């Protein structure tokens, strides 16, 4: 089955991002196809490349980046949510005259159209961290 995920919660603050990660791994292990993982609102913080987790805690940002790379997932960060929260790629950093990019390169930054596209092309869309 073709499944997409929408993630609303920041890692560390609420549990939703962790639940989504575990769900995503289990869906892949069961042979389902993950069409897209869409990060919305505070969910975009999962794609922040600058976060530094304590050594005695699981680095949830690294775990997402690693899962995305390993399975070549289509991981999309909502651009409006990301800009407001300081999650930028190099183009945006340059355009808005910010000193640095901050998005983990395994994630794409795009619009809500990518979420609609995921609805159209998936059998199921599951929301986490609402």
């Amino acid at each position, binding site marked *: 089955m073709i*499944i997409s995920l929408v993630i609303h919660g920041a890692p560390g603050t609420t*549990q939703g991002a962790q639940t989504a990660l575990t*769900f995503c791994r*289990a869906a892949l292990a*069961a042979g389902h196809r993950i069409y897209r993982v869409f990060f919305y609102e505070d969910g975009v913080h999962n794609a922040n490349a600058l976060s530094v987790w304590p050594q005695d805690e699981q680095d949830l940002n690294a775990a997402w980046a690693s899962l995305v790379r390993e399975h070549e997932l289509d991981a999309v960060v909502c651009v409006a949510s990301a800009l407001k929260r300081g999650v930028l790629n190099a183009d945006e950093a340059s355009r808005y005259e910010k000193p640095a990019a901050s998005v983990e390169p395994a994630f794409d930054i795009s619009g809500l159209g990518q979420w609609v596209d995921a609805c159209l092309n998936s059998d*199921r*869309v599951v929301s*986490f961290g*609402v």
Partner: protein
Amino acid sequence: MSTLHIVNKSPFRSDALQRCLALVAPGDSILLIEDGVLAASLSTLADSVSGRSVTCYALIDDLAARGVSAADTCIRSVDATGFVNLIVEHRNSLSHG
């Protein structure tokens, strides 16, 4: 043609479970996750869905983390694979914010 209702908030702090119970239809299921599993330890949930053809599940990792267990055998524990299967088996899912 049924909905999987996902509840992730404590029944004491939030009205999410109450609002879920107001919308649940025969053939639907309820999955308790995160702080939502705290409702599994109460007999009131089992009473609420009794006779309504609604099945209740709770995520086992979230129960174990909090050291609570389901009060009633009618609330079934599922792992992440079971969560995925529930998503597959229901037409859609509704994450109650």
